[in-house]
């Protein structure tokens, strides 16, 4: 078959095209025809279909996400939603950009590569903004911990997150690891990256300046990630000499090359420092289609691309495939003609292939040529920014009333056994087996990392200015009440950041939900967004960006709604940070905040009773705010020696983690109902230890935060007077054995790391 050109398309308006196989609806296809005044060419159809996919166009979520844009303007926000990542002013002329993104489905298909390329993708988003990436985090969800498929998926995902991030030299400073049946067949792999730059270094993704060159640099383009659209390959192209090529040869898996990405980072930073670009965009989902149309759409003119110039790894790729390829480790820059040589020289220094593939034009069309013929001629905005938008029907889940009415048990028959069960459950257990696979030290600026409540990174070695980050995404709460659940996650991340002593400043999020075509899922989604927006309004925080991942389901069953929320905070002086873990004997243990008997969606109800029902704990953002202000003050004045927030697993979990960290026990007394005291997940609570209880009490009183004295650190057991005694050795055994027993043997690792990608030193 011959090449489908613009000219041919105009002459053959009635040719059948496989738009439905490409995921376009009939009316969407019609709209493309209306825009172009003819049928699209194969290459155009490829571009529209990927760019109008849910993943790239946010067509189901857009109407809801507008709520974030409607939040009151924040002085801290330098660049808001819409760019690759938001940028926040963190003081002293520093700007920070951070974002979390999902790579769920690819990680199920090929765990190692899926997770690795997830990290690679978010790092490029941060780099694109002009920042040096300085740390990563990962939020992971798997099916039941003892399910065979979890043993297939988890070790590969963890090795992939580690393999890629470690090889880039980015410390992993925290994350989450949780298990639930609802993720069997649909694990969640959400990765966060944070980068730092000076205010004046912010870069944007737009193509300006007629005659400026479009440079593609990084890895060569292969057939990665286009397996799903191979329908086009078979359709249009002459088979090459071997006569073998066809859909089967196009991999749907993308393979990561962190070494190339590391070189890309260094090359980009040198290019930014020398001020050699006017606009830049990373290549992620939808590859060149996305990068060219977004750059052109955000700019003032048009763009001309000569597709023959794209360096290929696989010479059999069709032009449509080249436009859609999701080969990793590529970037696209707009460079003034005078700077091109300097730009290419930097790339050569770092062994990064770079090629001029086109230029900015004064028209308003994005045109692409191949073998001297025009195969794309479109208004770029219609591809990149004016995709379809849907207001999908919504309805609360039919079972929601019954679920909320099904209150959990509220009394423990055996506090000691329940305590051990909660802390040794896969969700509550020590995560060291996972986090040891991540480098936390590289770059030498990691002040706090897992298992701390927040990761803290120093950004200036002279002034000791730093940032704190936490990610939280409790899906049980969101299942019971998505509006409140999203706010509870926001509250937890906000609290975690404040516990370290940082002032919370901005929010990112990754919204993992089922199919938007299900009214019940759509309702959950809308409620979660509304909740997050309302929560941010109340806390005075902007949402700087995020990611939406829909269609997370196994067969007909959607995952529990999982809004993962990230909060960024600032430390004026990281040397004042408050760490977790008890080190010293004889300190007073205080509980800040108020405990109510709240077990709906709690870890205790899930682990001990296999129960999910009732209402999540009551949200109290006023109390969260007061508590955060108090924590910042306690840190600044150096009044507490440790702090740990109380969340999943309640006080029992928080005490366990605090005591086992350095092997320091405590003797404690609990007032009121012991089940609530130990296992309730009431919000706005933190456990602190101090040598000056009086001063902490006074500060708490001034802030309006209730204080309960729990006891005194010391000894080699956690003793709750009149209730139970847990020797630390026994507790440690229960807490640490779980994950190694499930995933720790070398046999489990067999096959998790594919040939060609050995992660090493």
């Amino acid at each position, binding site marked *: 078959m011959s090449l489908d050109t613009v000219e041919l398309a105009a002459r053959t308006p009635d040719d059948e095209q496989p738009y439905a196989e490409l995921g376009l609806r009939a009316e969407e296809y019609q709209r493309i025809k209306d825009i172009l005044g003819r049928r699209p060419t194969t290459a155009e159809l490829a571009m529209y279909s990927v760019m109008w996919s849910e993943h790239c166009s946010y067509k189901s979520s857009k109407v809801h996400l507008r709520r974030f844009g409607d939040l009151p303007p924040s002085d801290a926000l330098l660049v808001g939603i819409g760019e690759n990542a938001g940028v926040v002013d963190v003081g002293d002329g520093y700007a920070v950009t951070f974002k979390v993104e999902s790579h769920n489905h690819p990680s199920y298909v090929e765990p190692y590569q899926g997770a690795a390329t997830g990290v690679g993708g978010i790092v490029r988003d941060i780099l694109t903004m002009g920042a040096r990436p300085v740390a990563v985090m990962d939020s992971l969800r798997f099916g039941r911990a003892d399910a065979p498929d979890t043993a297939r998926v988890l070790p590969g995902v963890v090795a992939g997150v580690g393999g890629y991030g470690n090889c880039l030299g980015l410390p992993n400073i925290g994350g989450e690891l949780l298990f639930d049946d609802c993720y069997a067949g649909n694990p969640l792999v959400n990765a966060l990256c944070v980068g730092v730059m000076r205010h004046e270094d912010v870069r944007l993704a737009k193509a300006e300046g007629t005659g400026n060159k479009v440079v593609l640099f990084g890895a060569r383009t292969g057939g990665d990630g286009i397996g799903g659209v191979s329908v086009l390959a078979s359709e249009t192209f002459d088979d090459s000499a071997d006569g073998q090529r066809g859909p089967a040869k196009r*991999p749907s898996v993308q393979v990561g090359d962190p070494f190339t990405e590391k070189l890309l980072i260094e090359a980009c930073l040198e290019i930014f420092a020398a001020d050699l670009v006017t606009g830049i965009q990373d290549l992620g989902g939808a590859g060149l289609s996305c990068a060219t149309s977004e750059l052109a759409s955000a700019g003032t003119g048009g763009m001309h691309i000569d597709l023959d110039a794209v360096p290929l790894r696989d010479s059999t790729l069709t032009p449509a495939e080249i436009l859609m390829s999701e080969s990793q480790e590529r970037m696209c820059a707009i460079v003034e003609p005078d700077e091109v040589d300097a730009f290419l020289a930097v790339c050569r220094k770092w062994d990064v292939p770079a090629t001029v593939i086109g230029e900015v034009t004064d028209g308003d069309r994005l045109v692409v040529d191949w073998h001297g013929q025009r195969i794309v001629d479109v208004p770029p905005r219609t591809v990149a920014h004016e995709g379809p938008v849907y207001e999908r029907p919504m309805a609360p889940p039919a079972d929601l009333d019954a679920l909320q009415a099904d209150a959990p048990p509220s009394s423990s028959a055996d506090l000691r056994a329940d305590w051990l069960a909660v802390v040794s459950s896969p969700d509550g257990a020590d995560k060291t087996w996972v986090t040891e696979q991540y480098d936390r030290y590289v770059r030498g600026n990691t002040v706090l990392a897992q298992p701390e409540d927040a990761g803290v990174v120093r950004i200036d070695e002279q002034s000791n200015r730093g940032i704190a980050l936490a990610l939280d995404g409790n899906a049980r709460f969101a299942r019971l009440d998505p509006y409140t659940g999203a706010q509870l996650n926001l509250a937890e991340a906000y609290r975690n950041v404040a516990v370290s002593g940082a002032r919370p400043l901005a929010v990112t999020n990754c919204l993992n939900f089922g199919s938007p075509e299900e009214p019940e899922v759509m309702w959950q989604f809308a409620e979660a967004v509304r909740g997050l927006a309302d929560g941010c309004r109340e806390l005075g925080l902007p949402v700087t960006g995020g990611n939406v991942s829909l269609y997370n389901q196994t067969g007909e069953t959607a995952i529990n709604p999982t809004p993962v929320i990230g909060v960024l905070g600032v430390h004026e002086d990281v040397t004042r940070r408050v760490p977790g873990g008890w080190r010293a004997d004889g300190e007073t243990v205080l509980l800040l905040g108020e405990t109510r008997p709240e077990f709906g969606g709690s870890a205790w109800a899930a682990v001990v009773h296999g129960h999910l029902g009732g209402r999540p704990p009551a949200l109290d953002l006023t109390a969260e705010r007061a508590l955060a202000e108090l924590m910042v003050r306690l840190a600044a004045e150096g009044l507490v020696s440790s702090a740990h927030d109380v969340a999943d697993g309640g006080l029992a979990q928080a005490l366990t983690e605090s005591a086992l960290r350095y092997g320091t026990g405590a003797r404690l007394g609990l007032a009121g109902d012991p089940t609530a005291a130990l296992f309730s997940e009431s919000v706005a609570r933190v456990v602190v230890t101090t040598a000056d209880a009086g001063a902490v009490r006074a500060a708490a009183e001034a802030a309006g935060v209730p204080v309960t004295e729990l006891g005194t650190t010391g000894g080699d057991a956690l003793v709750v007077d009149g209730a139970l005694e847990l020797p630390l050795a026994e507790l440690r055994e229960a807490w640490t054995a779980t994950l190694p027993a499930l995933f720790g043997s070398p046999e489990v690792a067999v096959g998790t790391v594919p040939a060609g990608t*050995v992660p090493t030193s």
Partner: protein
Amino acid sequence: MVVDVVLKPEISDPQGQAVLGALGRLGHSGVRSVRQGKHFVLEVDGDPDEAELRQIAETLLANPVIEDVELHLPTD
């Protein structure tokens, strides 16, 4: 039995690329491409059951999503 596991041809091979780059810098310009895979040597008790060995190779030693296997049975 020997099993070689190689990346499918359409999958990118950063390791092979790195070796190729090194060869170029060391002046071995005659090498046009390098692909790197895994090589397993299995010793089997008694008579090897070819079907079983094939299954082992294809399900455990290789990841069929991105890798192909080549079996070399002792009789080869």
